[in-house]
């Protein structure tokens, strides 16, 4: 085994000091001299045409510098595609128009309650609020639709004239021969399930400061995809070259969980328009309630049908999925959902059809810590439970049929496969089985469940620059922002390891800056350690080579005879001949890139959760009492941080399974946009917890590392749902709240 100098052992986080002293700067702490406060006016209707909007009175409020409406939008904004490099669209899809659905709309139609209608910039919040109250809007309410399946029916309200039938895409594909597969089956099971929208509830709400310097646009915002999404969107909106748009982030992001991705452009645009009209910097900072309306996890409905032989062999799987993203239709990330349908249950014969239909529910359709896998599996799982029950097959054995192992060709997009580089699944299952005491006794009203996930991972490029300073210290320049998962620490230590220099002399740039720092695919889909890490490894090679070229003259040896360890360059054959990095004496710059390659094996780590829950069948309350997470991360660069990711994502998984749901009513009104009524787990709601890291040898990722973070939500929610199935012998849609559980009990009794 390779011996590492810096990684693979507990590393104190480099962001620790800033965070425990309150000196860490988040978006809410960012200020620009002379900035105004921007406030947004929202629609009271789920679907309506703005007939008239009068802003005169608002403009006359003392302190108001600008009022913007849809009339201030740059032309063509609704035709801007947000397609990112490497993303594949379904064949018949409408392009992913980034600015449609939420935000000011050029056709003056609001398509969900809580979509912006106008905005004000003023020198105080009080003046801005007063002005908002003076904007007169006359609406013509239009019929609204809130369900994707309903939206597809003839006569349903239409959301966009160029999206006939409300079909953004209707994607069908068959692998193998499903008809024959069902013929081979002894038994066929069906299930319909729904998954709810979850609020990211990021501790810091969305915010942006924007201003113009002539024809140069500057934006400060905490986004997880500045380069692939926000930058091209803003450049296209204002017909500027990307080089004339500077987007930078605060040093730290106050939580993301998928909620700071593609859609950022929609609300950043409001700040940019206000800044342009006011001629001053404008800060728009959403309140908690506004933020909760500005994006949620996508809600789905899935019909699943599975054929099985008496020995448990699955012969055919058929899915029919409806995705409800609200009025927004940004399908690229939904590809994942379709991809996962071919992956959650391993079978030669799979047919899937997924339809994405915009509706007038509040802005949904967002990614969220491993979206898609769980959504699909939550519906397939009860079928597996029924098979296990009816055929008397141990559930774990049945589940194992669907595990992907090292070298497997995993379906990864339509007609595409990726070879799985390594898998520690069998070790994970075996350990977990023991830790939860799978075959052991259960207490009264106690039930055990297990869940599994092989996550997707987004394949986007990353670039890094390494700069050797004359004193021997090193700058690591990336486009990465610390979202909380320890990115600054992990990448700094990986750079130290790859270069052969102590981490103490390396400084990683804090946050992204599209003007000065290299392109990065964003902090999402567990890609940073892997993709940016690989770019660091490559840059380190170049830096070492350049250092050796200089040092060879000074040490009187050939460059390839030199080694660099712990900041000292030395001759391999004669280590006494050495010099510190500071003796190189020249500033040196090296670059590295990660470019996704579909031919390259796919480094993805499976993760398993085991849970024990008690089910109070009188009140309908479910309480997790013990949780075990086993996470294959390849190589853990900083093991304690992997454990923190495990416990953190697990908490969101408990929330998803049991309590978290953005609730809207028959008018499309969100009722619980407030953490008092949006029930994310408190410290008293998280049970006894055991976290294990599984580290199979992997040759693909940097130092063998794979992603670690978001995937834990999925198996945790699945395991809880499975345990409740065991209690009720029937499926309950998440969140499994007392009302639903008691209803299900009444039905089964």
């Amino acid at each position: 085994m390779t011996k590492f100098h810096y990684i693979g052992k507990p590393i104190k986080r480099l962001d620790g000091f800033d965070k425990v002293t309150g000196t860490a700067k988040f978006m809410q702490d960012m200020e620009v001299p002379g900035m105004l406060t921007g406030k947004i006016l929202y629609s009271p209707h789920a679907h309506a045409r703005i007939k008239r909007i009068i802003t005169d009175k608002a403009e006359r409020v003392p302190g108001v510098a600008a009022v913007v409406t849809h009339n201030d939008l740059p032309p063509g904004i609704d035709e801007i595609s947000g397609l990112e490099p490497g993303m594949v669209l379904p064949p018949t899809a409408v392009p992913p128009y980034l600015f449609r659905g939420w935000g000011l709309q050029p056709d003056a139609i609001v398509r969900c309650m809580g979509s912006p209608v106008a905005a004000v910039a003023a020198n105080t919040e009080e003046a801005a609020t007063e002005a908002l109250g003076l904007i007169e809007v006359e609406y013509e309410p239009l019929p609204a639709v809130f369900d994707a399946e309903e939206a597809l029916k003839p006569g349903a309200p239409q959301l966009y004239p160029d999206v006939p039938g409300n079909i953004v895409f209707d994607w069908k594909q068959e692998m193998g021969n499903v008809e024959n597969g069902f013929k081979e089956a002894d038994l066929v099971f069906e299930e319909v399930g729904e998954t709810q929208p979850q609020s990211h509830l990021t501790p810091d709400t969305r915010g942006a400061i924007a201003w113009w310097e002539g024809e140069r646009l500057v934006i400060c915002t905490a986004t997880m995809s500045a380069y692939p999404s926000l930058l091209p969107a803003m450049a296209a909106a204002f017909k500027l070259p990307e080089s004339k748009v500077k987007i930078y982030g605060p040093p730290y992001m106050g939580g993301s969980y998928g909620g700071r991705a593609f859609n950022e452009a929609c609300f950043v645009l409001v700040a940019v328009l206000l800044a342009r009209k006011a001629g001053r910097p404008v800060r728009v900072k959403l309140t908690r309630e506004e933020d909760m309306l500005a994006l949620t996890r996508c809600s789905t409905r899935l019909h699943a049908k599975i054929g099985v032989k008496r020995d448990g062999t699955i012969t055919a799987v058929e899915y029919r999925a409806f995705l409800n993203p609200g009025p927004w239709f940004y399908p690229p990330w939904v590809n994942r959902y379709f991809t996962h349908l071919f992956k959650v249950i391993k079978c030669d014969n799979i047919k899937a059809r997924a339809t994405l239909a915009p509706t007038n529910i509040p802005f949904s359709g967002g990614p969220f810590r491993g979206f898609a896998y769980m959504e699909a599996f939550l519906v397939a799982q009860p079928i597996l439970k029924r098979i296990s029950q009816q055929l008397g097959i141990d559930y774990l054995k049945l589940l194992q049929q669907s595990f992907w192992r090292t070298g497997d060709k995993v379906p990864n997009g339509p007609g595409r496969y990726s070879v799985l580089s390594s898998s520690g699944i069998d070790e994970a299952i075996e350990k977990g089985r023991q830790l939860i005491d799978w075959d052991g006794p259960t207490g009264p009203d106690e039930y055990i469940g297990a869940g599994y996930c092989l996550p997707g991972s987004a394949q986007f490029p990353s670039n890094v620059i390494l700069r050797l300073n004359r004193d021997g210290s090193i700058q690591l320049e990336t486009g990465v922002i610390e979202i909380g998962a320890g990115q600054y620490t992990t990448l700094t230590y990986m750079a130290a390891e790859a270069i052969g220099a102590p981490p103490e002399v390396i400084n990683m740039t804090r946050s992204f800056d599209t003007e000065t720092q290299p392109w990065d695919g964003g902090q999402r889909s567990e890609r940073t350690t892997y993709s940016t890490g690989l770019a660091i490894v490559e840059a380190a090679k170049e830096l070492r080579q350049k250092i050796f070229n200089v040092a060879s003259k000074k040490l009187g040896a050939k460059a390839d005879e030199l080694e660099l360890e712990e900041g000292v360059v030395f001759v391999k054959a004669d280590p006494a001949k050495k010099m510190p990095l500071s003796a190189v004496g020249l500033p040196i710059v090296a670059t590295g890139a990660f470019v996704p390659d579909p031919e390259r094996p796919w480094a993805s780590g499976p993760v398993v959760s085991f849970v024990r829950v008690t089910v109070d069948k009188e009140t309908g309350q479910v309480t997790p009492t013990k949780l075990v997470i086993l996470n294959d991360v390849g190589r853990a660069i900083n093991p304690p941080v992997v454990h923190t990711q495990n416990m953190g994502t697990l908490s969101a998984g408990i929330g998803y399974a049991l309590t978290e749901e953005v609730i809207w009513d028959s008018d499309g009104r969100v009722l619980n946009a407030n953490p008092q009524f949006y029930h994310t787990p408190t410290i008293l709601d998280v049970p006894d917890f055991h976290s294990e890291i599984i580290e199979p040898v992997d040759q693909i990722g940097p130092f063998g590392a794979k992603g670690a973070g978001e995937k834990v939500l999925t198996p945790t929610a699945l395991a809880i749902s499975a345990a409740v199935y065991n209690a009720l012998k029937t499926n309950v849609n998440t969140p499994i709240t007392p009302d639903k559980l008691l209803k299900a009990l009444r039905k089964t009794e």
Partner: protein
Amino acid sequence: MKPFQHVNASTTDEAASLLHKSRGKAKLIAGGTDLLGILTDDILPAYPRTLVNLKTIPGLDSIKEDSKGLRIGALAKLSDIAGHPVIKDRYPMIARAAGSVAMPQVRNMGTIGGNLCQDNRCWYYRYPNHLGGRLICLRKGGTICYTLTRDNRLDSIFGGPEGCFAVCPSDIATSLVAMGATVTTTRRAVALQDFFTPSPGTILDADEILTEIQVPRPREGSRSAYLKFRLRKSIDFAMVNVACVLTVEGGLCREASIVLGAVAPTPWRAKGAEDVLRGRLVDDAAAEEAGQIALANATPLTMNKYKVAIARVLVKRAILASA
């Protein structure tokens, strides 16, 4: 928040007089944990011109016990009540109920008077003005109660006499009513259960102030239990709460007081359940029957039948816990 003026009152008379003179344009502020949320979201058609601060009135936060029982000033903080040695010892249910409110920080700010006078938590009533406009529901002088035809999962299972189906959200009210508490205002003294009205929530006139809560000494040998059902173990309001005081002698129930909270616009006394327990052996069967009777007259709405089931079980469990 939109602007307002702020006055520190030094006596209750002064505060009452300020309310009177303002003709409805002034509001009282105690702990502020409810009021400031209401003002931030600007949910009411009338925004106050002035806030009158009660925290500056000396002595209004005292907690005393005399021969008759406990006397709690309306400004006593929930955390002081929950941690008070006499209350913990002799009125444990009140300490538990006060300690179950929201979260530690809120209990360090919120007062008992504020908890009793807090406005309801109906999602429609509370819909923030800045998310597209507040809703003028029946309770605010409008013509409809939104919950009836929309989402009513958290609302009353015992009707809405004034047409509003929002429940009384107070945790501490349930336990105090079960203990037979009385309250004093600047104008009158009444039993706590008569202090509450379906809408607007309390009997308080616009210029009347709640000043003190009195709790009679529990009967010799009585035991009590307070159960709060909620999704999370902290922060959440009750979906249902139950307070039960039983006096059991020689195995038989002599006296019973059972009150349910968050099930009706005011704290809901389960008289039928109390009657069925009196003179009986308190066992599973009796508790079960009392639970059934307590909910027999429930009239749940379209989405809150589950609250009936939970309330029934909580009544049973509270009885068994205090037997």
